[in-house]
Protein backbone atom coordinates (compact mmCIF):
# COMPACT_ATOMS: atom_id res chain seq x y z
CA UNK A 1 0.00 0.00 0.00
CA UNK A 2 1.39 3.32 -1.01
CA UNK A 3 -1.09 5.52 0.83
CA UNK A 4 -3.40 4.63 3.67
CA UNK A 5 -5.81 7.21 5.00
CA UNK A 6 -7.69 6.32 8.12
CA UNK A 7 -10.66 8.24 9.50
CA UNK A 8 -9.29 11.58 8.34
CA UNK A 9 -11.14 14.61 9.64
CA UNK A 10 -10.24 18.11 8.55
CA UNK A 11 -12.30 21.12 9.58
CA UNK A 12 -12.27 24.69 8.33
CA UNK A 13 -12.46 27.51 10.79
CA UNK A 14 -14.89 30.19 9.61
CA UNK A 15 -16.70 33.11 11.16
CA UNK A 16 -19.83 31.02 11.59
CA UNK A 17 -18.10 28.05 13.15
CA UNK A 18 -16.24 24.98 11.99
CA UNK A 19 -17.08 23.56 8.59
CA UNK A 20 -16.60 19.82 8.68
CA UNK A 21 -15.24 19.65 5.16
CA UNK A 22 -13.74 16.19 5.62
CA UNK A 23 -15.43 14.09 8.22
CA UNK A 24 -13.90 10.68 8.65
CA UNK A 25 -12.65 9.36 5.34
CA UNK A 26 -10.73 6.09 5.05
CA UNK A 27 -9.24 4.63 1.91
CA UNK A 28 -5.98 3.39 0.47
CA UNK A 29 -4.07 3.72 -2.76
CA UNK A 30 -1.84 0.92 -4.04
CA UNK A 31 1.58 1.30 -5.57
CA UNK A 32 1.14 2.22 -9.20
CA UNK A 33 -2.53 3.03 -8.79
CA UNK A 34 -4.28 6.14 -10.10
CA UNK A 35 -7.20 6.95 -7.86
CA UNK A 36 -9.80 9.23 -9.39
CA UNK A 37 -11.45 11.37 -6.72
CA UNK A 38 -14.77 12.73 -7.93
CA UNK A 39 -17.65 14.60 -6.41
CA UNK A 40 -19.51 17.87 -6.59
CA UNK A 41 -18.25 21.18 -5.30
CA UNK A 42 -18.06 21.20 -1.54
CA UNK A 43 -17.81 17.43 -1.17
CA UNK A 44 -14.34 17.70 0.40
CA UNK A 45 -12.24 16.43 -2.48
CA UNK A 46 -10.01 19.50 -2.66
CA UNK A 47 -9.71 19.58 1.13
CA UNK A 48 -8.54 15.99 1.05
CA UNK A 49 -5.92 16.78 -1.58
CA UNK A 50 -4.68 19.81 0.30
CA UNK A 51 -4.49 18.10 3.65
CA UNK A 52 -2.11 15.51 2.24
CA UNK A 53 0.32 18.28 1.39
CA UNK A 54 -0.20 21.52 3.21
CA UNK A 55 -3.02 22.72 5.37
CA UNK A 56 -3.71 26.41 5.07
CA UNK A 57 -4.19 28.56 8.14
CA UNK A 58 -7.91 27.96 8.36
CA UNK A 59 -7.72 24.19 8.24
CA UNK A 60 -7.56 22.06 11.35
CA UNK A 61 -6.64 18.41 11.53
CA UNK A 62 -9.39 17.06 13.74
CA UNK A 63 -8.57 13.39 13.67
CA UNK A 64 -7.44 10.39 11.68
CA UNK A 65 -4.10 9.35 10.25
CA UNK A 66 -2.32 9.38 6.91
CA UNK A 67 0.37 6.82 6.18
CA UNK A 68 2.59 6.96 3.13
CA UNK A 69 4.85 3.97 2.37
CA UNK A 70 4.49 2.79 5.95
CA UNK A 71 5.44 6.15 7.41
CA UNK A 72 2.99 8.34 9.22
CA UNK A 73 2.72 11.82 7.69
CA UNK A 74 2.67 14.66 10.24
CA UNK A 75 0.01 16.46 8.23
CA UNK A 76 -0.96 18.85 11.00
CA UNK A 77 2.61 20.09 11.46
CA UNK A 78 3.61 22.43 8.68
CA UNK A 79 7.32 22.43 9.53
CA UNK A 80 7.64 18.69 9.97
CA UNK A 81 5.81 18.12 6.67
CA UNK A 82 8.52 20.02 4.80
CA UNK A 83 10.94 17.12 4.23
CA UNK A 84 8.08 15.10 2.73
CA UNK A 85 6.86 17.72 0.27
CA UNK A 86 8.18 17.24 -3.27
CA UNK A 87 10.29 14.30 -2.11
CA UNK A 88 7.50 11.98 -1.02
CA UNK A 89 4.26 13.71 -1.86
CA UNK A 90 3.65 16.46 -4.39
CA UNK A 91 0.67 18.52 -5.49
CA UNK A 92 -0.36 20.10 -8.76
CA UNK A 93 -2.80 22.74 -7.57
CA UNK A 94 -6.01 23.82 -9.23
CA UNK A 95 -4.66 27.12 -10.46
CA UNK A 96 -1.16 25.93 -11.19
CA UNK A 97 -1.35 27.75 -14.51
CA UNK A 98 -0.68 30.95 -12.59
CA UNK A 99 1.64 29.37 -10.03
CA UNK A 100 4.81 30.23 -11.89
CA UNK A 101 6.73 33.40 -11.20
CA UNK A 102 6.14 35.60 -14.26
CA UNK A 103 9.45 37.45 -13.96
CA UNK A 104 11.72 34.39 -14.08
CA UNK A 105 12.64 32.29 -17.04
CA UNK A 106 11.31 28.81 -16.50
CA UNK A 107 14.69 27.05 -16.49
CA UNK A 108 16.09 29.43 -13.90
CA UNK A 109 13.00 29.07 -11.75
CA UNK A 110 13.27 25.28 -11.79
CA UNK A 111 16.93 25.50 -10.74
CA UNK A 112 16.12 27.82 -7.84
CA UNK A 113 13.28 25.64 -6.73
CA UNK A 114 15.45 22.54 -6.67
CA UNK A 115 18.23 24.33 -4.85
CA UNK A 116 15.78 25.38 -2.15
CA UNK A 117 15.05 21.68 -1.72
CA UNK A 118 18.75 20.88 -1.54
CA UNK A 119 18.88 19.05 -4.86
CA UNK A 120 21.03 19.78 -7.85
CA UNK A 121 19.39 20.21 -11.22
CA UNK A 122 20.05 17.36 -13.62
CA UNK A 123 19.57 19.03 -16.97
CA UNK A 124 19.47 15.83 -19.00
CA UNK A 125 16.87 14.29 -16.73
CA UNK A 126 14.78 17.47 -16.91
CA UNK A 127 14.88 17.47 -20.68
CA UNK A 128 13.92 13.82 -20.83
CA UNK A 129 10.90 14.61 -18.71
CA UNK A 130 9.96 17.56 -20.88
CA UNK A 131 10.10 15.27 -23.88
CA UNK A 132 7.78 12.88 -22.09
CA UNK A 133 5.07 15.56 -21.94
CA UNK A 134 5.91 16.72 -25.45
CA UNK A 135 7.36 20.07 -24.45
CA UNK A 136 10.37 21.31 -26.41
CA UNK A 137 13.45 21.97 -24.31
CA UNK A 138 13.34 25.60 -25.45
CA UNK A 139 10.58 26.28 -22.94
CA UNK A 140 13.27 26.50 -20.28
CA UNK A 141 14.49 29.71 -21.84
CA UNK A 142 11.05 31.25 -22.01
CA UNK A 143 8.91 33.18 -19.57
CA UNK A 144 5.73 31.57 -18.28
CA UNK A 145 3.60 34.12 -20.14
CA UNK A 146 4.91 32.83 -23.45
CA UNK A 147 3.38 29.42 -22.86
CA UNK A 148 -0.22 28.48 -23.57
CA UNK A 149 -2.45 27.21 -20.78
CA UNK A 150 -1.91 23.57 -21.64
CA UNK A 151 1.85 24.02 -21.87
CA UNK A 152 2.01 25.74 -18.50
CA UNK A 153 -0.04 22.98 -16.99
CA UNK A 154 2.36 20.35 -18.32
CA UNK A 155 5.36 22.40 -17.18
CA UNK A 156 4.00 22.49 -13.65
CA UNK A 157 3.42 18.75 -13.88
CA UNK A 158 7.06 18.21 -14.75
CA UNK A 159 8.26 20.51 -11.99
CA UNK A 160 6.16 18.91 -9.28
CA UNK A 161 7.33 15.41 -10.16
CA UNK A 162 11.05 16.14 -10.61
CA UNK A 163 11.98 14.44 -7.35
CA UNK A 164 9.98 11.29 -8.15
CA UNK A 165 7.48 11.63 -5.32
CA UNK A 166 5.73 8.55 -4.12
CA UNK A 167 2.33 10.22 -4.34
CA UNK A 168 1.14 12.95 -6.70
CA UNK A 169 -2.07 14.83 -6.04
CA UNK A 170 -3.52 16.53 -9.13
CA UNK A 171 -6.35 18.87 -8.18
CA UNK A 172 -8.76 19.78 -11.00
CA UNK A 173 -5.85 20.43 -13.28
CA UNK A 174 -7.80 19.92 -16.47
CA UNK A 175 -10.97 21.82 -15.71
CA UNK A 176 -9.84 25.08 -17.31
CA UNK A 177 -8.54 23.42 -20.47
CA UNK A 178 -10.11 22.74 -23.84
CA UNK A 179 -11.08 19.16 -24.59
CA UNK A 180 -8.14 18.35 -26.83
CA UNK A 181 -5.65 19.89 -24.39
CA UNK A 182 -7.39 18.11 -21.55
CA UNK A 183 -6.81 14.81 -23.26
CA UNK A 184 -3.11 15.49 -23.76
CA UNK A 185 -2.63 16.57 -20.13
CA UNK A 186 -4.52 13.60 -18.73
CA UNK A 187 -2.56 11.19 -20.87
CA UNK A 188 0.71 12.79 -19.83
CA UNK A 189 -0.30 12.24 -16.20
CA UNK A 190 -0.92 8.56 -16.82
CA UNK A 191 2.45 8.48 -18.59
CA UNK A 192 4.18 9.73 -15.45
CA UNK A 193 2.87 6.74 -13.58
CA UNK A 194 3.81 4.35 -16.37
CA UNK A 195 7.40 5.56 -16.45
CA UNK A 196 7.67 5.49 -12.67
CA UNK A 197 8.16 9.22 -12.08
CA UNK A 198 5.42 8.92 -9.52
CA UNK A 199 4.40 5.74 -7.79
CA UNK A 200 0.76 6.49 -7.30
CA UNK A 201 -1.57 9.34 -7.96
CA UNK A 202 -4.79 10.94 -6.76
CA UNK A 203 -6.56 12.63 -9.64
CA UNK A 204 -9.19 15.03 -8.33
CA UNK A 205 -11.88 16.17 -10.73
CA UNK A 206 -15.58 16.85 -10.97
CA UNK A 207 -15.69 15.14 -14.37
CA UNK A 208 -16.35 11.44 -13.97
CA UNK A 209 -16.05 10.72 -17.69
CA UNK A 210 -12.58 12.22 -17.67
CA UNK A 211 -11.37 10.40 -14.59
CA UNK A 212 -12.75 7.17 -16.06
CA UNK A 213 -10.28 7.56 -18.92
CA UNK A 214 -7.14 7.40 -16.79
CA UNK A 215 -8.01 6.17 -13.31
CA UNK A 216 -7.73 2.59 -12.08
CA UNK A 217 -10.24 3.13 -9.35
CA UNK A 218 -12.68 5.92 -8.60
CA UNK A 219 -13.75 7.25 -5.25
CA UNK A 220 -16.98 9.25 -5.08
CA UNK A 221 -17.32 11.64 -2.18
CA UNK A 222 -20.41 13.33 -0.87
CA UNK A 223 -20.63 16.03 1.80
CA UNK A 224 -17.26 15.27 3.39
CA UNK A 225 -17.66 11.51 3.39
CA UNK A 226 -16.83 8.60 1.17
CA UNK A 227 -19.89 7.44 -0.74
CA UNK A 228 -18.40 4.74 -2.92
CA UNK A 229 -15.00 3.51 -4.05
CA UNK A 230 -14.49 0.84 -6.65
CA UNK A 231 -12.50 -0.02 -9.77
CA UNK A 232 -13.25 2.58 -12.46
CA UNK A 233 -15.26 0.23 -14.63
CA UNK A 234 -17.43 -0.88 -11.71
CA UNK A 235 -18.24 2.70 -10.71
CA UNK A 236 -19.41 3.48 -14.22
CA UNK A 237 -21.17 0.24 -15.12
CA UNK A 238 -22.39 -1.12 -11.78
CA UNK A 239 -22.52 1.59 -9.13
CA UNK A 240 -24.19 0.58 -5.87
CA UNK A 241 -24.58 3.87 -4.03
CA UNK A 242 -27.73 5.73 -5.08
CA UNK A 243 -25.77 8.98 -5.27
CA UNK A 244 -23.24 7.49 -7.68
CA UNK A 245 -26.03 6.01 -9.74
CA UNK A 246 -27.93 9.29 -10.00
CA UNK A 247 -24.77 11.20 -10.71
CA UNK A 248 -23.77 8.90 -13.55
CA UNK A 249 -27.30 8.98 -14.93
CA UNK A 250 -27.24 12.77 -15.02
CA UNK A 251 -24.28 12.91 -17.39
CA UNK A 252 -25.14 13.56 -21.00
CA UNK A 253 -22.92 11.76 -23.44
CA UNK A 254 -22.29 12.39 -27.07
CA UNK A 255 -25.11 10.49 -28.72
CA UNK A 256 -27.68 11.13 -25.99
CA UNK A 257 -30.32 13.63 -27.13
CA UNK A 258 -32.91 15.48 -25.12
CA UNK A 259 -35.58 14.36 -27.56
CA UNK A 260 -34.68 10.68 -27.22
CA UNK A 261 -33.80 10.30 -23.58
CA UNK A 262 -34.49 12.95 -21.02
CA UNK A 263 -31.89 12.85 -18.28
CA UNK A 264 -32.57 14.23 -14.88
CA UNK A 265 -30.49 15.75 -12.15
CA UNK A 266 -30.56 15.12 -8.43
CA UNK A 267 -33.15 17.25 -6.69
CA UNK A 268 -32.13 19.24 -3.65
CA UNK A 269 -28.69 20.33 -2.62
CA UNK A 270 -25.97 18.98 -0.32
CA UNK A 271 -26.34 19.67 3.41
CA UNK A 272 -24.46 22.46 5.12
CA UNK A 273 -21.25 21.11 6.61
CA UNK A 274 -21.35 23.68 9.39
CA UNK A 275 -23.85 21.50 11.13
CA UNK A 276 -24.14 18.30 9.12
CA UNK A 277 -27.18 16.10 9.72
CA UNK A 278 -26.76 12.83 11.56
CA UNK A 279 -27.05 9.59 9.69
CA UNK A 280 -26.56 9.28 5.98
CA UNK A 281 -25.84 12.69 4.53
CA UNK A 282 -27.49 11.90 1.24
CA UNK A 283 -30.70 10.90 2.96
CA UNK A 284 -32.67 14.05 2.10
CA UNK A 285 -32.07 13.69 -1.60
CA UNK A 286 -32.16 9.93 -1.81
CA UNK A 287 -35.16 8.18 -3.35
CA UNK A 288 -34.32 4.97 -1.49
CA UNK A 289 -34.03 6.47 1.97
CA UNK A 290 -35.71 4.54 4.77
CA UNK A 291 -35.71 4.56 8.56
CA UNK A 292 -32.34 2.95 8.93
CA UNK A 293 -30.71 5.88 7.10
CA UNK A 294 -30.98 7.91 10.29
CA UNK A 295 -27.98 5.87 11.35
CA UNK A 296 -24.74 6.58 9.62
CA UNK A 297 -23.90 3.84 7.10
CA UNK A 298 -20.34 2.50 7.36
CA UNK A 299 -18.26 2.14 4.20
CA UNK A 300 -18.36 -1.63 3.75
CA UNK A 301 -16.47 -3.72 1.26
CA UNK A 302 -19.38 -5.32 -0.60
CA UNK A 303 -17.12 -7.13 -3.01
CA UNK A 304 -13.33 -7.07 -3.34
CA UNK A 305 -12.15 -3.47 -3.72
CA UNK A 306 -15.69 -2.14 -3.82
CA UNK A 307 -16.61 0.02 -0.82
CA UNK A 308 -20.07 1.49 -0.42
CA UNK A 309 -21.46 3.60 2.39
CA UNK A 310 -25.15 2.81 2.02
CA UNK A 311 -27.58 0.59 3.91
CA UNK A 312 -29.23 -0.45 0.64
CA UNK A 313 -26.08 -1.40 -1.17
Amino acid sequence: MSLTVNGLQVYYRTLKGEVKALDGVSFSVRDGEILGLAGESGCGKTTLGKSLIRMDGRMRHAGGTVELDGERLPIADDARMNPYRFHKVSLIPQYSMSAMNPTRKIGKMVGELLRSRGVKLDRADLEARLAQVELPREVLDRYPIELSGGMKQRMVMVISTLLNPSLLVADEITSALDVSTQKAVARALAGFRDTGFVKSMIFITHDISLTYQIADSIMIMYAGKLAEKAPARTIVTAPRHPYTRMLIDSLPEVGVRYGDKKLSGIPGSPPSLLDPPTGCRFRDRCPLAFDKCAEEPPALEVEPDHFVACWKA
Partner: protein
Amino acid sequence: MTVLDTALPPSPPTVRREALYFALRNGKLLVGLGVITVFLATGLLGPMLVAASPNDYVGLPMQPPSSEHWFGTNTFGQDIFVQFVHGLRTTFAVGVLGGGLAAIIGMVVGFVAGYRGGLVDEVLNMLTNIILVIPTLAVLLIINAYLGIRSVGVQALFIGLTSWPWAARAIRAQTFSLRSREFVDLARLSGARAWKIIVREIAPNMSSYLFMTFILLFGGSILIASSLDFIGLGPTEGVSLGLMLQNAHQWSALHLGLWWWFIPPGAGITAVVGALYVANVGLDEVFNPKLRET
Protein backbone atom coordinates in the same frame (compact mmCIF):
# COMPACT_ATOMS: atom_id res chain seq x y z
CA MET B 1 -35.10 46.42 6.59
CA THR B 2 -38.48 45.13 5.67
CA VAL B 3 -40.61 42.78 7.69
CA LEU B 4 -39.61 39.95 5.43
CA ASP B 5 -35.97 40.47 6.26
CA THR B 6 -36.46 40.17 9.94
CA ALA B 7 -38.71 37.18 9.46
CA LEU B 8 -35.90 35.28 7.81
CA PRO B 9 -34.10 32.65 9.82
CA PRO B 10 -30.79 33.87 11.23
CA SER B 11 -29.01 34.32 7.96
CA PRO B 12 -25.26 34.16 7.57
CA PRO B 13 -23.62 37.52 7.94
CA THR B 14 -24.01 39.67 4.88
CA VAL B 15 -21.19 41.65 3.38
CA ARG B 16 -22.13 44.68 5.39
CA ARG B 17 -22.64 42.87 8.63
CA GLU B 18 -19.35 41.09 8.18
CA ALA B 19 -17.58 44.41 7.62
CA LEU B 20 -19.12 45.74 10.80
CA TYR B 21 -17.98 42.65 12.69
CA PHE B 22 -14.38 43.23 11.66
CA ALA B 23 -14.64 47.00 12.04
CA LEU B 24 -15.55 46.67 15.71
CA ARG B 25 -12.55 44.40 16.24
CA ASN B 26 -10.00 46.46 14.37
CA GLY B 27 -7.76 48.38 16.74
CA LYS B 28 -6.29 50.67 14.11
CA LEU B 29 -9.67 51.75 12.87
CA LEU B 30 -11.06 52.34 16.36
CA VAL B 31 -8.02 54.30 17.54
CA GLY B 32 -7.92 56.37 14.33
CA LEU B 33 -11.60 57.15 14.41
CA GLY B 34 -11.43 57.86 18.13
CA VAL B 35 -8.68 60.45 17.72
CA ILE B 36 -10.48 62.06 14.80
CA THR B 37 -13.73 62.19 16.75
CA VAL B 38 -12.07 63.87 19.72
CA PHE B 39 -10.48 66.52 17.51
CA LEU B 40 -13.62 66.98 15.45
CA ALA B 41 -15.68 67.48 18.61
CA THR B 42 -13.10 69.97 19.87
CA GLY B 43 -13.19 71.84 16.59
CA LEU B 44 -16.99 71.87 16.44
CA LEU B 45 -17.89 72.47 20.05
CA GLY B 46 -14.76 74.30 21.27
CA PRO B 47 -15.46 77.62 19.54
CA MET B 48 -18.94 77.66 21.08
CA LEU B 49 -17.64 77.02 24.57
CA VAL B 50 -14.83 79.53 24.63
CA ALA B 51 -16.09 83.03 24.93
CA ALA B 52 -13.18 84.90 23.39
CA SER B 53 -12.57 85.28 19.69
CA PRO B 54 -9.21 83.96 18.49
CA ASN B 55 -7.63 87.31 17.79
CA ASP B 56 -8.69 89.00 21.03
CA TYR B 57 -5.92 90.12 23.32
CA VAL B 58 -7.00 88.46 26.51
CA GLY B 59 -4.07 88.49 28.86
CA LEU B 60 -0.41 89.03 29.47
CA PRO B 61 1.85 88.06 26.58
CA MET B 62 4.07 84.98 26.59
CA GLN B 63 2.39 83.23 29.50
CA PRO B 64 2.99 79.49 29.82
CA PRO B 65 -0.03 77.20 30.11
CA SER B 66 -2.07 77.86 33.21
CA SER B 67 -5.55 77.12 34.51
CA GLU B 68 -6.75 80.38 32.98
CA HIS B 69 -5.12 79.98 29.57
CA TRP B 70 -4.84 76.24 29.00
CA PHE B 71 -2.30 76.49 26.22
CA GLY B 72 -0.78 79.75 27.40
CA THR B 73 -0.64 83.00 25.43
CA ASN B 74 1.51 84.23 22.59
CA THR B 75 3.66 87.29 22.15
CA PHE B 76 0.57 89.45 21.73
CA GLY B 77 -1.35 88.07 24.66
CA GLN B 78 -3.76 86.04 22.51
CA ASP B 79 -5.07 82.81 24.04
CA ILE B 80 -3.55 79.87 22.18
CA PHE B 81 -6.25 77.41 23.21
CA VAL B 82 -8.90 79.67 21.71
CA GLN B 83 -6.86 79.91 18.54
CA PHE B 84 -6.39 76.16 18.56
CA VAL B 85 -10.08 75.26 18.72
CA HIS B 86 -10.93 77.78 16.00
CA GLY B 87 -7.97 76.63 13.95
CA LEU B 88 -9.12 73.02 14.22
CA ARG B 89 -12.52 73.98 12.89
CA THR B 90 -10.91 75.72 9.90
CA THR B 91 -8.60 72.79 9.30
CA PHE B 92 -11.48 70.33 9.24
CA ALA B 93 -13.43 72.65 6.95
CA VAL B 94 -10.54 72.75 4.48
CA GLY B 95 -10.24 68.98 4.67
CA VAL B 96 -13.93 68.36 4.06
CA LEU B 97 -14.33 70.96 1.33
CA GLY B 98 -11.04 70.37 -0.46
CA GLY B 99 -11.08 66.60 -0.02
CA GLY B 100 -14.77 66.43 -0.90
CA LEU B 101 -14.36 68.47 -4.06
CA ALA B 102 -11.34 66.42 -5.13
CA ALA B 103 -13.27 63.21 -4.41
CA ILE B 104 -16.25 64.36 -6.49
CA ILE B 105 -14.10 65.36 -9.47
CA GLY B 106 -12.04 62.20 -9.15
CA MET B 107 -15.14 60.03 -9.06
CA VAL B 108 -16.83 61.67 -12.01
CA VAL B 109 -13.69 61.54 -14.15
CA GLY B 110 -12.75 58.04 -12.98
CA PHE B 111 -16.21 56.54 -13.43
CA VAL B 112 -16.85 58.09 -16.82
CA ALA B 113 -13.40 57.24 -18.17
CA GLY B 114 -13.50 53.70 -16.81
CA TYR B 115 -17.04 52.93 -17.88
CA ARG B 116 -17.06 54.60 -21.28
CA GLY B 117 -13.58 53.60 -22.36
CA GLY B 118 -12.41 54.39 -25.87
CA LEU B 119 -11.98 57.99 -26.91
CA VAL B 120 -13.68 59.44 -23.83
CA ASP B 121 -11.25 57.51 -21.69
CA GLU B 122 -8.26 58.68 -23.66
CA VAL B 123 -9.23 62.35 -23.43
CA LEU B 124 -10.00 62.17 -19.73
CA ASN B 125 -6.87 60.17 -19.10
CA MET B 126 -4.80 62.80 -20.84
CA LEU B 127 -6.39 65.53 -18.73
CA THR B 128 -5.76 63.52 -15.58
CA ASN B 129 -2.14 62.94 -16.47
CA ILE B 130 -1.58 66.60 -17.26
CA ILE B 131 -2.92 67.69 -13.89
CA LEU B 132 -0.99 64.88 -12.26
CA VAL B 133 2.39 66.01 -13.56
CA ILE B 134 1.83 69.71 -12.96
CA PRO B 135 3.82 70.66 -9.86
CA THR B 136 0.74 71.38 -7.81
CA LEU B 137 2.40 73.28 -5.03
CA ALA B 138 4.18 75.59 -7.45
CA VAL B 139 0.97 76.37 -9.26
CA LEU B 140 -0.80 77.01 -5.99
CA LEU B 141 2.02 79.33 -5.01
CA ILE B 142 1.69 81.30 -8.20
CA ILE B 143 -2.08 81.46 -8.07
CA ASN B 144 -1.99 82.46 -4.44
CA ALA B 145 0.68 85.02 -4.99
CA TYR B 146 -1.20 86.69 -7.84
CA LEU B 147 -4.79 86.37 -6.74
CA GLY B 148 -4.29 86.22 -3.02
CA ILE B 149 -6.49 84.00 -0.98
CA ARG B 150 -8.97 85.68 1.25
CA SER B 151 -11.02 82.85 2.59
CA VAL B 152 -10.85 79.24 3.59
CA GLY B 153 -13.37 78.37 0.90
CA VAL B 154 -11.17 79.65 -1.91
CA GLN B 155 -8.20 77.79 -0.50
CA ALA B 156 -10.25 74.58 -0.37
CA LEU B 157 -11.38 75.17 -3.95
CA PHE B 158 -7.81 75.42 -5.20
CA ILE B 159 -6.79 72.32 -3.30
CA GLY B 160 -9.80 70.40 -4.56
CA LEU B 161 -9.17 71.36 -8.17
CA THR B 162 -5.60 70.12 -8.13
CA SER B 163 -5.53 67.02 -5.95
CA TRP B 164 -8.04 64.73 -7.68
CA PRO B 165 -5.94 63.04 -10.40
CA TRP B 166 -4.63 60.03 -8.48
CA ALA B 167 -8.12 59.37 -7.14
CA ALA B 168 -9.49 59.51 -10.69
CA ARG B 169 -6.88 57.06 -11.88
CA ALA B 170 -7.54 54.63 -9.06
CA ILE B 171 -11.31 54.80 -9.53
CA ARG B 172 -10.93 54.41 -13.28
CA ALA B 173 -8.92 51.23 -12.81
CA GLN B 174 -11.51 49.79 -10.42
CA THR B 175 -14.38 50.75 -12.71
CA PHE B 176 -12.58 49.14 -15.59
CA SER B 177 -12.41 45.80 -13.85
CA LEU B 178 -15.98 45.99 -12.55
CA ARG B 179 -17.33 46.98 -15.94
CA SER B 180 -16.47 43.59 -17.41
CA ARG B 181 -18.36 41.79 -14.65
CA GLU B 182 -21.44 40.06 -15.85
CA PHE B 183 -23.90 41.89 -13.65
CA VAL B 184 -23.02 45.07 -15.50
CA ASP B 185 -23.82 43.32 -18.77
CA LEU B 186 -27.12 42.21 -17.30
CA ALA B 187 -27.92 45.76 -16.24
CA ARG B 188 -27.24 46.85 -19.80
CA LEU B 189 -29.52 44.08 -21.03
CA SER B 190 -32.16 45.49 -18.72
CA GLY B 191 -31.98 48.69 -20.71
CA ALA B 192 -30.57 50.76 -17.85
CA ARG B 193 -28.75 53.94 -18.81
CA ALA B 194 -25.03 54.41 -18.31
CA TRP B 195 -25.24 56.79 -15.36
CA LYS B 196 -27.69 54.51 -13.65
CA ILE B 197 -25.38 51.56 -14.09
CA ILE B 198 -22.48 53.55 -12.67
CA VAL B 199 -24.38 54.86 -9.68
CA ARG B 200 -26.41 51.77 -8.86
CA GLU B 201 -24.27 48.85 -9.96
CA ILE B 202 -20.63 49.87 -9.99
CA ALA B 203 -20.33 52.46 -7.24
CA PRO B 204 -21.92 50.32 -4.47
CA ASN B 205 -19.34 47.65 -5.17
CA MET B 206 -16.52 50.00 -4.41
CA SER B 207 -18.16 52.04 -1.67
CA SER B 208 -15.43 51.10 0.79
CA TYR B 209 -12.85 52.08 -1.76
CA LEU B 210 -14.53 55.42 -2.41
CA PHE B 211 -14.74 56.07 1.30
CA MET B 212 -11.05 55.40 1.73
CA THR B 213 -10.25 57.62 -1.23
CA PHE B 214 -12.16 60.42 0.45
CA ILE B 215 -10.31 59.89 3.72
CA LEU B 216 -6.94 60.08 2.01
CA LEU B 217 -7.94 63.19 0.06
CA PHE B 218 -9.26 64.70 3.29
CA GLY B 219 -5.94 64.16 5.05
CA GLY B 220 -4.05 65.36 1.99
CA SER B 221 -6.04 68.60 1.85
CA ILE B 222 -5.29 69.33 5.48
CA LEU B 223 -1.60 68.81 4.86
CA ILE B 224 -1.52 70.97 1.73
CA ALA B 225 -3.52 73.71 3.43
CA SER B 226 -1.21 73.67 6.42
CA SER B 227 1.85 73.88 4.18
CA LEU B 228 0.36 76.81 2.30
CA ASP B 229 -0.53 78.55 5.54
CA PHE B 230 2.90 77.94 6.93
CA ILE B 231 4.71 79.51 4.00
CA GLY B 232 2.46 82.50 4.26
CA LEU B 233 0.00 81.82 1.50
CA GLY B 234 -2.93 80.93 3.70
CA PRO B 235 -6.22 82.77 4.00
CA THR B 236 -5.84 86.29 5.26
CA GLU B 237 -8.97 86.02 7.32
CA GLY B 238 -9.54 83.76 10.25
CA VAL B 239 -7.19 81.36 11.92
CA SER B 240 -6.01 77.86 11.15
CA LEU B 241 -3.51 75.45 12.61
CA GLY B 242 -1.15 76.21 9.74
CA LEU B 243 -1.44 79.95 10.30
CA MET B 244 -0.71 79.48 13.98
CA LEU B 245 2.45 77.62 13.08
CA GLN B 246 3.38 80.34 10.66
CA ASN B 247 2.88 83.04 13.28
CA ALA B 248 4.87 81.11 15.83
CA HIS B 249 7.65 80.75 13.34
CA GLN B 250 7.48 84.38 12.28
CA TRP B 251 7.72 85.63 15.87
CA SER B 252 10.55 83.27 16.75
CA ALA B 253 8.60 81.21 19.25
CA LEU B 254 11.25 78.52 19.05
CA HIS B 255 14.06 80.87 20.05
CA LEU B 256 12.04 82.48 22.76
CA GLY B 257 11.20 79.08 24.21
CA LEU B 258 7.45 79.53 23.73
CA TRP B 259 6.91 75.82 23.11
CA TRP B 260 3.21 76.10 23.92
CA TRP B 261 2.78 78.25 20.83
CA PHE B 262 3.92 75.82 18.15
CA ILE B 263 3.43 72.43 19.75
CA PRO B 264 -0.41 72.42 19.92
CA PRO B 265 -0.99 73.29 16.22
CA GLY B 266 1.86 71.04 15.08
CA ALA B 267 0.68 68.16 17.20
CA GLY B 268 -2.91 68.81 16.09
CA ILE B 269 -2.08 68.55 12.40
CA THR B 270 0.07 65.49 12.93
CA ALA B 271 -2.55 63.79 15.08
CA VAL B 272 -5.47 64.45 12.74
CA VAL B 273 -3.65 63.47 9.55
CA GLY B 274 -1.94 60.54 11.24
CA ALA B 275 -5.23 59.31 12.70
CA LEU B 276 -6.83 59.56 9.25
CA TYR B 277 -4.14 57.41 7.73
CA VAL B 278 -4.24 54.88 10.56
CA ALA B 279 -8.02 54.70 10.21
CA ASN B 280 -7.54 54.20 6.49
CA VAL B 281 -5.22 51.27 7.04
CA GLY B 282 -7.76 49.87 9.48
CA LEU B 283 -10.55 50.27 6.95
CA ASP B 284 -8.45 48.54 4.37
CA GLU B 285 -8.08 45.59 6.71
CA VAL B 286 -11.80 45.56 7.39
CA PHE B 287 -12.83 45.55 3.75
CA ASN B 288 -10.04 43.46 2.35
CA PRO B 289 -10.30 39.92 3.69
CA LYS B 290 -6.74 39.15 2.66
CA LEU B 291 -5.38 41.66 5.17
CA ARG B 292 -7.48 40.42 8.05
CA GLU B 293 -5.66 38.79 10.88
CA THR B 294 -6.88 35.25 11.33
